[in-house]
């Protein structure tokens, strides 16, 4: 009875989590959902007389593998979520058909099969005095060769991962001399301007004003600027708001064109604000944050490219107006 209850609870949880894994837009959510599924399964293992596997499941999967996933997710960029526009014609439809068909087929098949009561593992484990010793006996006797091979596999995999992830240095490492020379040869010999010129703000998201009165986009961190745009926490001053939007959309970013900034400075209160610039149409809000480089594949995904491209062009349009 207890097992039935456990099963039904965990079955519902794991299926819902699996669905969430598939359908959540953000990769991090997906990862978490997967964790949920794995934990549920660990419990189910435990219920099914497999305590060792349950523990391994938690340690290896939920512990190691999931951590690895999250590492990579962070490395690649948390914000790199999927576009919802399907580009391969009929892929989704047929995928669902295939999945449903497969599930129904299996379910019907299993349902029709005449399956007696489980034999239980107590007979198999009693001789060795428990699940773990029984498994150990098997692993180190009959399956010892396979076991040794898996060890080789793991080492190979570790080496492979190192080789794959290793980046060959194509140029000698830059010395301090090189760095400072590059800095003086570049646009900004000095450190980037600090934000927050207004005392009334905590000001880390406020662009600085340069001595000539123009707004410096370089002074704002892009992630913070995005937060502002996403949360609608833009300052009232249109010049500043525009600068923040520019930073957020990445068009200004690290090396803004002074001319753009200049233009903004000269035309305070431009009517562009009412158009909701920086908000890409049709793609939903989160679309706006997707990085063009990540999504941008103009050949294969014209729609996305259009969206991203338009987002990138807005400042110029505005300039024209």
């Amino acid at each position, binding site marked *: 009875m207890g*097992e*039935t209850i456990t099963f039904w609870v965990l079955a519902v949880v794991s*299926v819902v989590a*699996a669905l969430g*894994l*598939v359908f959540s837009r953000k990769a991090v959510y*997906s990862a978490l959902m*997967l964790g949920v*599924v*794995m934990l549920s*399964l660990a419990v*189910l*293992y435990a219920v099914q007389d*497999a305590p*060792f*596997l349950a523990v*391994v499941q938690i340690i290896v*999967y939920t512990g*190691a*593998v999931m951590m*690895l*996933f999250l590492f*990579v*997710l962070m*490395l*690649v*960029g948390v914000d790199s979520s*999927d576009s919802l526009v399907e580009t*391969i014609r009929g*892929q*989704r439809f*047929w*995928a*669902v058909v295939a*999945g449903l068909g*497969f*599930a129904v087929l*299996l*379910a019907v098949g*299993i*349902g029709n099969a005449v*399956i007696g009561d*489980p*034999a*239980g*593992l107590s*007979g*198999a484990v009693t001789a060795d005095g428990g699940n773990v010793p029984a*498994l150990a006996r*098997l692993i180190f006797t009959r399956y010892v060769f*396979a076991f040794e091979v*898996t060890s080789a596999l*793991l080492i190979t*995999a570790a080496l*492979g*991962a190192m080789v*794959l992830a290793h980046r060959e240095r194509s140029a000698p490492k830059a010395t301090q001399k090189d760095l400072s020379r590059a800095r003086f040869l570049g646009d900004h010999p000095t450190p980037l301007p600090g934000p927050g010129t207004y005392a009334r703000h905590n000001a880390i998201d406020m662009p600085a004003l340069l001595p000539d009165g123009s707004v410096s986009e370089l002074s704002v961190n892009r992630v913070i600027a995005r937060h502002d745009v996403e949360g609608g926490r833009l300052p009232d001053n249109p010049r500043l708001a525009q600068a923040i939007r520019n930073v957020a959309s990445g068009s200004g970013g690290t090396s803004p064109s002074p001319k753009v900034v200049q233009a903004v400075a000269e035309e305070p209160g431009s009517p562009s604000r009412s158009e909701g610039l920086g908000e890409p149409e049709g793609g939903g809000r989160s679309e706006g944050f997707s990085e063009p480089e*990540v*999504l941008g594949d103009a050949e*294969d995904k014209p729609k996305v490219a259009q969206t991203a491209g338009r987002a990138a062009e807005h400042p110029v349009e505005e300039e024209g107006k």
Partner: protein
Amino acid sequence: MTTHYLVLSALLFAIGGVGVLVRRNAIVVFMCVELMLNACNLAFVTFARQHGNLEGQIIAFFVMIVAAAEVVVGLAIIVTIFRTRRSASVDDANLLKY
């Protein structure tokens, strides 16, 4: 009861499969593959109990090891691809065609 476990396993497997098919983010696709592997493991464990035989658990154990190795290599590949193409979309890696 075995039937229930098996059906659950089938469902999870199918959901994982659909995920592989519809998601484009390589990492998410990878997660879906893991889901499918886990669904298989569930079936193994279930059958082990059904038949009163530990071999099923052994296989599940090996699957986990292999899956771990696979994740390591696979993620390394994803990182490498991301580094060169600035993209983690599986659709972008379509040079091998025609």
